[in-house]
């Protein structure tokens, strides 16, 4: 039984609903038979003219040409790497493997890129990086060049990058520009990417837990001709939870792939393929909808994970009687705890107006908790953030 699901409502289902769903779906798994022929499918990548395989080879960390050959045999035509991985060794390994296999260059799609230009970067230094990537990959052109790992709107709107890209494009070295990243503020960056009209492709984190608004963003991107590829569809891939959920014989990995490919504007999911079994498992997810049991599995996992993320949606701020800047504080907390930007986070918190800080939270009844559409314990999170961010208190 393949279940039709409301993607946006997926996260809003409570534990009780998940339990019912699990009961309905139990006994209806779709394990891929070993002898089932694997069939790859291809989707257009926005208006680029490229046809990408629904499963893309996340090439980093894999310098095994035989594995790549098996992926090609399975129909995977899209390979993703970055010049920023392992000082460029990943690009070299991909270039070496492609050369050893002897695949005609025009039958595969290569994505690579670099982190956003830094303060010292110029059009010339960015152009040099593109040339270096071409040399490492042993190719004359890059299908999709990524402005990777964006962390701010400034990163998205980098004029030196745009100019370097246009120069390289005129020279035939690159064909399409992608915006890539997976940071907490990615939705804002994707919106900026849509608005600026400079990007042909999004390559972004996309999972069934984190950002329900992202579906609409991808739809708006598609309306502008921007194609989307995604990665990190496992929502953290928490081993303990997954092992428990897979006991019924389901594959969490396959379920997450099916979920991502369920969005019509997701052209391809990049997967790190470290062994032959993983290739088969991933490709076997292509062309199959989520079974009810798989949907229930993802719901149960989402229930476990959903309380751990603030989406910065600000819904709770309207309910706060003290005017606490919840989203800002949680963003700074993310800088502190996740990005290692501790001193900056503490400085930013210190600059907030007194009323906007979490001072009042200790004695508050926490109307924010009830207001959070994701059921987070907002007040506790604010108090935790205050303990980290308040320099005087620290």
């Amino acid at each position: 039984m393949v279940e039709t699901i409301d993607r946006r409502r997926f996260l809003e289902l409570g534990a009780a609903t998940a339990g019912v769903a699990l009961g309905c779906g139990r006994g209806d798994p779709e394990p891929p038979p070993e002898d089932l022929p694997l069939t790859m499918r291809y989707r257009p990548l926005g208006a680029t003219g490229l046809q990408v395989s629904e499963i893309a080879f996340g090439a980093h960390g894999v310098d095994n040409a035989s594995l790549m050959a098996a992926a090609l045999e399975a129909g995977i035509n899209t390979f993703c790497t970055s010049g920023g991985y392992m000082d460029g060794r990943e690009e070299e390994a991909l270039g070496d493997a492609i050369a050893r296999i002897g695949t005609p260059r025009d039958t595969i799609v290569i994505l690579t890129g670099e982190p956003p230009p830094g303060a010292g970067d110029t059009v010339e230094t960015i152009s040099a990086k593109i040339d270096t990537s071409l040399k490492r990959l042993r190719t004359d052109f890059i299908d999709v060049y990524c402005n990777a790992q964006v962390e701010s709107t400034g990163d998205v709107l980098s004029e030196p990058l745009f100019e370097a890209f246009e120069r390289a494009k005129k020279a035939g070295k690159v064909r399409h520009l992608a915006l890539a990243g997976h940071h907490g503020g990615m939705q804002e960056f994707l919106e900026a990417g849509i608005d600026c009209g400079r990007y042909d492709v999004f390559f972004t984190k996309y999972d069934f837990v984190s950002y329900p608004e992202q579906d609409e963003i991808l739809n708006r991107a598609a309306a502008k001709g921007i194609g989307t590829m995604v990665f990190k569809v496992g929502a953290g891939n928490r081993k303990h939870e997954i092992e428990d959920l897979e006991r019924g014989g389901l594959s969490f990995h396959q379920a997450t792939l099916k979920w991502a490919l369920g969005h019509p504007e997701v052209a391809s999911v990049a997967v790190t393929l470290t062994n032959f079994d993983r290739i088969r498992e991933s490709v076997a997810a292509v062309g199959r909808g989520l079974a009810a049991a798989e949907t229930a599995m993802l719901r149960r996992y989402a229930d476990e994970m959903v309380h751990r993320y603030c989406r910065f949606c600000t819904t709770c701020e309207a309910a706060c009687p003290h005017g606490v800047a919840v989203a800002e504080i949680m963003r700074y907390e993310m800088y502190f705890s996740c990005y290692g930007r501790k001193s900056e986070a503490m400085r930013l918190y210190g600059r907030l107006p007194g009323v906007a800080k979490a001072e009042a939270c200790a004695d508050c009844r926490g109307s924010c908790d009830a207001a959070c559409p994701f059921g987070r314990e907002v007040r506790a999170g604010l108090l935790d953030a205050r303990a980290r961010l308040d320099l005087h208190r620290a």
Partner: protein
Amino acid sequence: MTARTLILALTVGLAGCAGGDPITTATPPMTRLLPAASELAGWTVAEGPAEYSPDTLYEYLNGGAERYQSHGFRRLLHIRYQLGGDPLACVTLDLYDMGSELGAFGIYSAARPAGLEPMQWGAEGYRSGSIAAAFRGSIFIHGEADDDRQELVEMLEKLVSGVAGGADGSVSPPAILAPLPQTHRQAGSERYVPSNLLGHSFLPGGVLAGYEIDGRRAELFVTDLGAEADAVAAVAALRAHFESRETIARGAPTFGDDGFRTTDPIFGQGSVVRSGNLIAGIHGDMLVQEREDILSRLIAEATEAASRR
């Protein structure tokens, strides 16, 4: 976050706030490895020190984090030193605690460019342009200068060699490399892969190394399954893999057990044997006698090492 972790994070964070202040030695071992301010005349701390955990490494390395995770990454200490008042004259230093010597060597060997003369930093190090790296014990050290100005490169080398000198652990190559035959081995070609050797989920991690004879090259691999029964099953699975691809060749090595030869369109001509818990093989464009001579020396050395234990 536990109270202890929180205290640690705050201590590191406050040290970062002080910009240019000495990094105290009262905090965790990784910060202990950093130079004192008195050793950094003219330099200040422009960023950090900041710590990343397995959960947050993605925020620093993006998708590149996966490779570190697979090698047993425990934590990262990141710091950026600045020369004078120029924010574009910095050296970034990253200290990765990989949890084990093999993990540190594995990630070091994956990043090491081919053909570089190794430096005597820790167990081994190298510099390639504005990038330098080394490992010792469980610590992998990676540094990068903003450009190749002499003063930046000098600082880069000083930082990487200094940290490698202060880290705990042996200054010799990992013991796992000892059985690899020396003759014809390509310098700096040794790698440790933590799992899925050759892309097979039934093989654990193992070691690879390149060999060359008169321009003919081959890659040697060896893995220890831990138990003979497991090795027997794994070598059978490996043979089945080649059989399914119709790449089994005639003949077999005259040493070891369960041996077979392969002819793979990508790997070239190969030979595989099992010896006790070990599975080893070699593939490339070497002549069969050349590659099996290297393989037999590996098996002999590994067997002797096992008997010594």
